[in-house]
Structure formats: structure tokens, C-alpha cells
């Protein structure tokens, strides 16, 4: 059976080994340091390119919006287009009224006036 040593004595024994290990230096080569710095600069370039790409893709949208007069104009334009399309599809009869082909109302109105004229004539004639 292995003899058990008190912690302090064991630590003293091990300290010699730890001191020896601490004395061993692992100096990085210049090539290694260059590779690490190159990685850093590559990352910077990649981020810059990515940021430029994002800026370019945003700018054409912003330019388009500016050309049509901003958000308010864009909203008004969209609303007008929607109303126009809806009117075209949803109420084709209204188009007859606008073009003057809707004669039913005019007929009723003409008949009403005719009837009124006739009654007045009857009263005059007795």
C-alpha cells in the first residue's frame, strides 16, 4: 500500500516539478504571429465588405422612395391604385351610369314630370 503523505509535504515535492514546468517557455514563431494577425485583418475586410453590400442594397430602395416623393406619396399612390382596381372589378354597372347608358332613372324622372304636367292641364281645363 502506498504511503500517504501530508498535503504540505506532497505539495513541496510537486512544487519542484511545477517550477521546472513554469521555466519552459513556448515562444511563438514569427510565422505563427503573422498568421494570427492576418486572420484578424481578413475578418476586418470581410466585415467591411459585408457592411458595404448591406449599404448598397439599402440605397436603391431609399432612392426609389425618394423619387416618388417619400412615404406619404408612396402610401397615397398605393391607396389610389387599390381603389382604382377595386372599382374596376367590383361595380361594372356603375360604369354604365358614368358613361350615360343608364336610362332607367331618366325615364322615371321624365314620366314623373309628364304626369305632373298632365294633371296641371286637367285642373286648368276643369
Amino acid at each position, binding site marked *: 500500500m*502506498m504511503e500517504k*503523505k501530508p*498535503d504540505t509535504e*506532497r*505539495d513541496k*515535492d*510537486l512544487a*519542484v*516539478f*511545477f*517550477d*521546472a*514546468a*513554469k*521555466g*519552459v*517557455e*513556448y*515562444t*511563438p514563431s514569427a510565422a*505563427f*504571429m503573422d*498568421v*494570427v*494577425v492576418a*486572420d*484578424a*485583418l481578413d*475578418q*476586418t475586410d470581410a*466585415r*467591411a465588405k459585408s457592411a458595404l453590400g448591406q449599404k448598397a442594397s439599402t440605397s436603391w430602395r431609399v432612392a426609389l422612395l425618394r423619387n416618388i416623393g417619400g412615404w406619404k406619396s408612396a402610401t397615397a399612390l398605393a391607396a389610389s391604385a387599390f381603389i382604382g382596381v377595386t372599382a374596376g372589378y367590383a361595380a361594372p354597372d356603375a360604369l354604365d351610369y358614368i358613361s350615360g347608358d343608364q336610362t332607367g332613372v331618366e325615364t322615371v324622372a321624365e314620366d314623373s314630370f309628364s304626369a305632373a304636367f298632365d294633371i296641371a292641364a286637367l285642373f286648368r281645363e276643369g
Partner: protein
Amino acid sequence: MALDAMNDVSDDALMVLYANGDAQAARALTYRHAPRVLALSRRLLRDMAEAEDVAQDAMLRLWKVAPEWRQGEAKVSTWLYRVTSNLCIDRLRKKRGTHLDDIPEPADDKPSVESLMQSHDRATALQAAMAQLPARQNLAVTLRHIEELPNPQIAQIMDISVDAVESLTARGKRTLAGLLSGQKEKLGLE
């Protein structure tokens, strides 16, 4: 700004400068941290090529995280130690079982080389013994007794309590003492 002029600039400030595209800040961070990251990787992995891979990977992760770095939340050194430790532990766990038998014996079992310094022999013997520890015990002992970090920082790096750090280092040292006890005479310690 010249590299020397950045000696007094804090890590957090350098991270902001680097995130804004400052190449000198990248160099300053590299010269400040890469050697320590490499040393820790080398101590844990015992292979310089592998250690360089891990150190490069850890530093690359630092460059990537720079734009989102939250100042004052974590120390750059602690963050790097943590990333490096995790990368090394992953590699050690993959190697365990398959390469355990490939771990070189301490230098003293080889023919003695007169020019080899005794302290180098001890360091080699310690490394060989530490390679036999479970990965997290190895990490805790390395951070505490070779990198000489305080227990609270080790707890942050390993994401465990200070008590757990103390327990890991104590168990690790107990095992190391057993592994090294038979070599004390050869290493000029008795």
C-alpha cells in the same frame, strides 16, 4: 497609433478599436494574448503543431466576436483561456483511449543525455504524468500551478465553482504525486 503606444490601452478598448477596423489594435491584442494561448495549448496538448492550430482557432474566434464584445462583462484573457481550454479538452478527449499508449515515457527512461538540464527532465516527467490525468484535472492543475491563475478566475474559465476547482486540483495533485514518486531519485530529488 504605434504598437508601443497601445501598451497602456485596455483590452476592452483594443477590442472596440479592432472592431472599428484598427489593424494596430489587432496586432496589440495578438502580441498580448497569442503567446499565452499558445503556451496553454502546448502544455495541455504536448504537440506544437496541434497547439498552434488551437491557438489560431481561439484567436480567430476572438476576432469574430469583437463587434459584439460587451465591455466589462468578461476579461479578454479569461474568455480566451476558456475557449482554448474547451478546444484542448475536446482534442484530448478524442485522443484518449486511442493514443494513451503513445504518450512518451519520461525522459529518464530514455538513455541519459548529459547536456539535458535536470529541470528540463523534471518538466518532461511532469508533462508525461499530467497527460495521464483526466482532461479537466489536467486543465485545473495547469491553470493553477503552471499558469498561476487564481482559483476564482479558473472557476470562470472552467464554468464551475471555486470549490470544484479546489477539488479538481487536489485530486490531480494526489494522482501526480503517485505517478512521480517513483522517479524522484532519477530526477535528483532524493
